[in-house]
């Protein structure tokens, strides 16, 4: 491995238990354990993280709607009879983010894509992500809670912590009281 081009891992973040996982970007790391730690450093500086997943990019299938349609016409070869689980992420037409839609069982990624295009057709996605469950490493919920706890303490990372607006108003009031000129 060269020292600047480690494998890429896609990062998926679920902000609260009421949200779904969103694709937020990637990290480079030599292994999944380090990828989770890097993902924490890059994506969890603010206290919005209930669960973090990392998935080896090489094992994830990312296709646009057009690419997906082209792929699904190819004869998808049977991957040896075993059913695997695939997490499906998609980006709907007018949305900006890629979000988790559901989990599908299929013998291969392309089979999973075909199934997903059927199951989620009503969503009319522009982009499909097929993420094999075995490629995913998930954060330990106790650890994630401690990252968030630490981030919550750091109120100075929020703009509301600063008094610029109040101070500016006071300065302006003082100036007009004194009848100040510019």
């Amino acid at each position: 491995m060269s020292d600047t081009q480690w494998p890429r891992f896609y990062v998926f973040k679920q902000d609260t238990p009421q949200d779904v996982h969103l694709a937020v970007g990637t990290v480079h790391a030599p292994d999944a354990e380090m990828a989770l730690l890097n993902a924490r450093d890059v994506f969890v500086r603010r206290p919005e993280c209930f669960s973090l997943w990392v998935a080896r990019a090489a094992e994830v299938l990312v296709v646009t709607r057009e690419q997906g349609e082209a792929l699904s016409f190819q004869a998808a070869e049977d991957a040896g009879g075993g059913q695997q689980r695939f997490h499906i992420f998609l980006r709907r037409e007018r949305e900006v983010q890629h979000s988790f839609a559901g989990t599908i069982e299929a013998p291969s990624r392309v089979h999973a894509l075909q199934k997903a295009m059927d199951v989620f057709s009503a969503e009319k996605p522009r982009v499909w992500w097929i993420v094999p469950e075995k490629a995913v490493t998930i954060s330990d919920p106790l650890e994630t809670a401690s990252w968030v706890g630490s981030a919550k303490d750091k109120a100075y990372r929020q703009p509301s912590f600063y008094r610029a607006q109040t101070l500016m108003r006071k300065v302006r009031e003082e100036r007009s009281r004194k009848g100040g000129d510019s």
Partner: protein
Amino acid sequence: MAERTVERDAAYAEKLAAFEERIARGDKIEPGDWMPEQYRRQLIRMISQHAHSEIIGMLPEGGWITKAPTIRRKLVLLAKVQDEAGHGEYLYHAAETLGATREEMIRQLLAGEAKYSNIFNYPTLTWADIGIIGYFVDGAAIMNQTMLSRCSYGPYARANIRISAEESFHMQQGKEMVILLSQGTPTQRSMVQDAVNRWWWPTLMMFGPHDANSPNSPALIGWGIKTKTNDELRQSFVNQLIPELHDLGLSVPDPDLYFDEESGNWRIGEIDWDEFWRVVKGDGPCNRERMRARQKAHEDGRWVREALEAYAERRAGEGAE
């Protein structure tokens, strides 16, 4: 032969029309979509320069972490610089979706072949500079990034949305500092006025050359990469800052500044573009220092990368999951 060329040209024209129609509709271009080579190249250039700027931007402020006057200010500065590292990561990722590699982008930066925002080639001479960087430089960056959050290329738009959400505290903490210093003791007031005098023009240059001298701009705007011109953004920034600075009793080093009643704009004097190009070409006050710091950081971190690799290989060899 000629027939095939005509067919190819027609196929290309069709693809280009569909691509431009998609942008006009407000749809995002995503990795895997067809795109003109010029679009891809322009974006790789812009995004990688933006990423390098975040990483190099950690240096002028990083030097003051050990010299912050209070523990509160130290924690705030640490958090800000940490964010900037994260922002660089978001942006390198966006460039990678276009086919750039992390390895090549880092190599270019360390070899001094890559450009990054000029503003970071200026020195931070006093503590007031830290406040001014937040207020001016992050303020200008926020305007640019807010615009780029609506960029036609999905990964770059998403990176800028994430950056913009985190960046607003950077500006607020700087502005708060500048307000307090400007209303403080005579020493504090003169320190912050001196910082204004040194950072005002470089900040205005952040918005890039005048529109008439920006050969890339029309294509970037046509393809939804930029939605405002350099001069438009610069004017917004000036209109926002000047009244605030005047209210704080601070002046800008521009004897030609005046308020144009008719347009409602503050008109600035001539920008010294010779200085801009000199600094861009590597002859600024801190260019060499920034490069040396980045190269040293890369070298000093080598043992960490080697250790991680050795650990990962050992675990893989042990057949661990």
